[in-house]
């Protein structure tokens, strides 16, 4: 792999930029691998990357039904933060956030991480109490956040309307090192690094069956033939239930559609990320100038990658009160992603009843920010075959043991 640098750009300019090599290889599928990861989204690629980088396991295939990063990795609102209430969540999300800080250098790929700060608005009395509590918890966890008053909110985000009337801004939980990153670049950067380590990324290859023998996984049947593997990692977000069904176990998940939309590009007007959880709306401005707006989830099981229109209406209706200037904006695109939601709104990074098969799912509405941390934890789980480290608390057994990592209370809503 040739390194990307300012020097490389200058050198390639002499050949009219015709000489750049492919960012990642397009290999034929082999018959046998040590590890197969199903799902070449952010989490799957990060898992493969850390298996290679942290544990030296590189005989890996990453199988993808569609195209690389074409699921939720390319459909989110790119917000990165780690201001969670519960210790296990704060640990894994803060690990992820810290890995984002150096990701561009680590991968030699510009993921445009922009730690511009994330502000979660408190618009009810209950939210003030909740966020103050989170700020205290974060202090103990070593996550840098603070609770700020309305004047500081206005200072950080001048286009905000504080007085309401329906949803006055009473304060906010402020994480200065949160921010955004270029979501596609995260997938592409990982793919390039994985390919460089000799891993095979197989796109447009759908898994049709999981083969097993004596309760141990032996391989996969796919639309590009069958292959053997010693270990299998299922990292397929919304389709987890479907894959688990093939592997012969059930999951405490339901798949729903989560929507987002972007406006026409405008001049820079907002250099922080603002989340308003009471009204299910969050907004940031992309580098292109579009206002990126995230909404709420549908109330019913859905695999269609599109959501109900009235949810968008609710989100926008609330946002124009908090950001009156948005009311004159035209919306350019809107889309939906299928998110897999668990009962306690926390992910599952776990061994499964099938030996040698591991699952990473349940990130629900907040998976993008966790990508590097999730890959780090999943790689440790798969390499050591032990529920330890960052993944320790995220096992499937927590539901039976009543040991929830209850972020639905902490975040209130979609997070």
């Amino acid at each position, binding site marked *: 792999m040739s390194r990307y640098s300012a020097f490389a750009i200058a050198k390639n300019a002499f050949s009219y930029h015709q000489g750049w090599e492919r960012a990642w290889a397009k290999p034929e599928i082999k018959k046998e691998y040590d590890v197969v990861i199903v799902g070449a989204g952010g989490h799957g690629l990060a898992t493969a990357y850390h298996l290679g980088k942290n544990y030296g396991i590189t005989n890996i295939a990453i199988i993808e039904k569609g195209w690389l990063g074409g699921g939720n990795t390319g459909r989110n609102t790119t917000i990165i933060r780690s201001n969670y209430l519960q210790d296990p969540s704060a640990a894994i999300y803060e690990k992820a956030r810290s890995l984002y800080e150096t990701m561009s250098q680590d991968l030699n790929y510009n993921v445009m991480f922009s730690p511009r700060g994330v502000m979660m608005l408190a618009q009810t009395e209950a939210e003030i109490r909740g966020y103050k509590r989170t700020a205290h918890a974060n202090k103990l966890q070593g996550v840098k956040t603070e609770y700020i008053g309305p004047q500081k909110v206005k200072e950080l985000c001048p286009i905000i309307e504080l007085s309401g009337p329906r949803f006055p801004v009473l304060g906010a939980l402020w994480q200065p090192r949160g921010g955004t990153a270029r979501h596609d670049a995260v997938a592409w950067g990982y793919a390039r690094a994985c390919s460089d380590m000799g891993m095979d990324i197989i796109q447009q290859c759908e898994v049709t069956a999981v083969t097993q023998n004596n309760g141990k996984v032996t391989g996969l049947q796919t639309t590009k033939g069958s292959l053997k593997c010693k270990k299998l990692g299922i990292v397929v977000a919304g389709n987890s239930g479907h894959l688990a069904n093939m592997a012969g176990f059930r999951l*405490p998940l339901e798949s729903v559609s989560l929507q987002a939309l972007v406006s026409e590009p405008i001049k820079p007007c907002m250099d922080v990320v603002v989340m308003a959880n009471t009204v299910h709306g969050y907004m940031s401005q992309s580098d292109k100038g579009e206002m990126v707006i995230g909404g709420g989830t549908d*109330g019913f099981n*859905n695999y269609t990658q599109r959501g109900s229109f009235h949810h968008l209406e609710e989100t926008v209706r609330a946002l124009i009160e908090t950001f009156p200037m948005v009311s004159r904006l035209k919306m350019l695109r809107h889309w939906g992603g299928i998110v897999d939601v668990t*009962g306690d709104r926390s992910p599952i990074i776990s061994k499964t009843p099938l030996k040698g098969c591991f699952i990473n799912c349940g990130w629900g509405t907040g998976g993008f920010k966790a990508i590097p941390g999730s890959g780090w934890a999943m790689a440790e789980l798969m390499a050591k075959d032990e529920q330890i480290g960052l993944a320790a608390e995220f096992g499937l057994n927590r*539901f039976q043991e009543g040991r929830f990592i209850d972020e639905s209370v902490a975040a209130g809503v979609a997070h």
Partner: protein
Amino acid sequence: MLNLTCPNCGITADETDLHCDGQAHIARSGINANDDELENYLFMRDNPKGVHFERWRHIYGCGKWFNAARCTTTLEVFGTYSAQTFTPPKALINKIKKKRPNWEGFTK
């Protein structure tokens, strides 16, 4: 917009008048249930990619519960029926089988 006909009051309402409450026909585990059974009852869900039987409530209408059979990949509604039953009506199952020949059928 998803439209469902409430079998209780006969009104065809769109999803803003209704509330979905997840998978239908989940049998409550008894007082002697072991950990596995209780976990299954409380948390595990079929979450199928395809035909799904689910509970709905006509919240901004008659207020009553009913069940619906719906496809989660196309949002096609196969039919709605009374919530006072342990299994979907035979006629509805036959109708779904005709439309989805590869469907494995209703399993409990």
